[in-house]
């Protein structure tokens, strides 16, 4: 199994990188039972004093579960960073999601390597 590269681009204080990564690892795609970081659905996170913004994608624009995943991501980031931090999660479709974005562990679980 190849080691993972950085799962998403991060901008902000280094000490918060692990906090937001752990929070997003707790957001689970209910159908796959895999988290959105492992599935490569998180594109970017930017933390600033008083706010955090995440850009994520989904494998399908026709999937209503998107709404649930966004809510869960907002909830987990909000709980991790504490009250008073404004949380924004934007769903983007460009660039399109690609199986190469999945973590080595997820790819192994799904038979890629």
């Amino acid at each position, binding site marked *: 199994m190849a080691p993972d590269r950085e799962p998403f681009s991060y901008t902000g204080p280094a000490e918060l990188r692990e906090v937001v990564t752990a929070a997003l690892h707790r957001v689970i795609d*209910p*159908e*796959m*039972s895999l988290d959105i970081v492992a*599935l490569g659905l998180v594109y970017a996170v930017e933390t600033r004093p008083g706010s955090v913004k995440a850009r994520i994608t989904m*494998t*399908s*624009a*026709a*999937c*209503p*579960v*998107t*709404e*649930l995943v966004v809510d869960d991501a907002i*909830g987990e980031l909000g709980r991790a960073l504490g009250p008073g931090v404004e949380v924004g999660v934007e769903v983007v*479709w460009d660039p*399109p999601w690609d*199986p190469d974005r*999945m973590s080595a562990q997820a790819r192994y*679980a*799904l*038979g*890629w390597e």
Partner: protein
Amino acid sequence: MNPGLRAARIALLLLGAACLAAGVSGGLARAGIPLAAPASAAFHGALMTGGFLGTVISLERAIALGSPIALAAPLASGLGALCLLRGISPLAQWLLLAAPLLLSAASVAIARRQPQPHTLLLVVAASAWVAGNALFIHGAPPDACAAWWFAFLVLTIAAERLEMTRLMKRRAAAKPLFYGLTATLLAGAALATLDPVPGDVVFGLALLGLALWLAAFDIARRTVRSDGLPRYAAVSLLAGYAWLGLGGLAWAAEPFAASAPRDAAMHALGLGFVFSMIFAHAPIIVPVVARVSVRFTPAFYAPLALLHASLALRLVPGFLQTDARRWGALLNAAAIALFVATLLASMTRRRA
């Protein structure tokens, strides 16, 4: 979330449930259960495919699109089907034409947002519903409408499964094979409208081919080895593919046998395949629609097992015996009721 929007979604889900209740009572009346439901019996197919499934599929698509205007599709679908209970009126006809056109528009908007094979296939599937309802409104024979209605349902489900297969490593031949089967299915539906003999055979064999494709390439083959909800969903999907294949064979056999294969084909597809998909996905999708949490328990396996056992009873001995068919139909309805009860019992209000 806006409480008005949540209420509108729940109201539309209940509208779909009303169509389901009417459709099931009509189905039971057809199977010989003494129920005074002549209109539901006459329009059983339209109530189940358009009324119930068309409404919930359109609702799901509207939520994915995130546009309250798109909720007009499930509204038209559900109301149009219920209007049929008072006969084929001009209002019912307009609503039954508007619903698939509105779903097609929502599907086009999604395909523009993410131009991928699975989103384009959803547009094709919605167009098959347009064709089926247009034929129905113009008084085409039920079997000609049924091929288009099932094309709508099968292709909608296949599109969603196609999307999931992207997560798995596939053989290079899988994609062109899938497109070939989809084109054959549509050609079969079109041919069946003109001449049932070759049309039914082509349509049925395409269904069988799609069942084999899904059984070979679906991610359910992997998730069945996990646990909890993903495992339960995978079991439901794989069992559904078996019925899809059998339904395809029965559909292809129609021109060479008496009237029984068509009933077997429709129920293998409608109950064995489509309802198995509903049982698999409702615990995932209903929480989104109604903003509730669903706690998965092994109790969900009980209605699933009852659905498949009762369908086997209905279609195997029921092929020849009216009594077995009647008991099978009654237990099919019991399986759906048990599933709804299990789902309701596992729900809690979702935290904000």
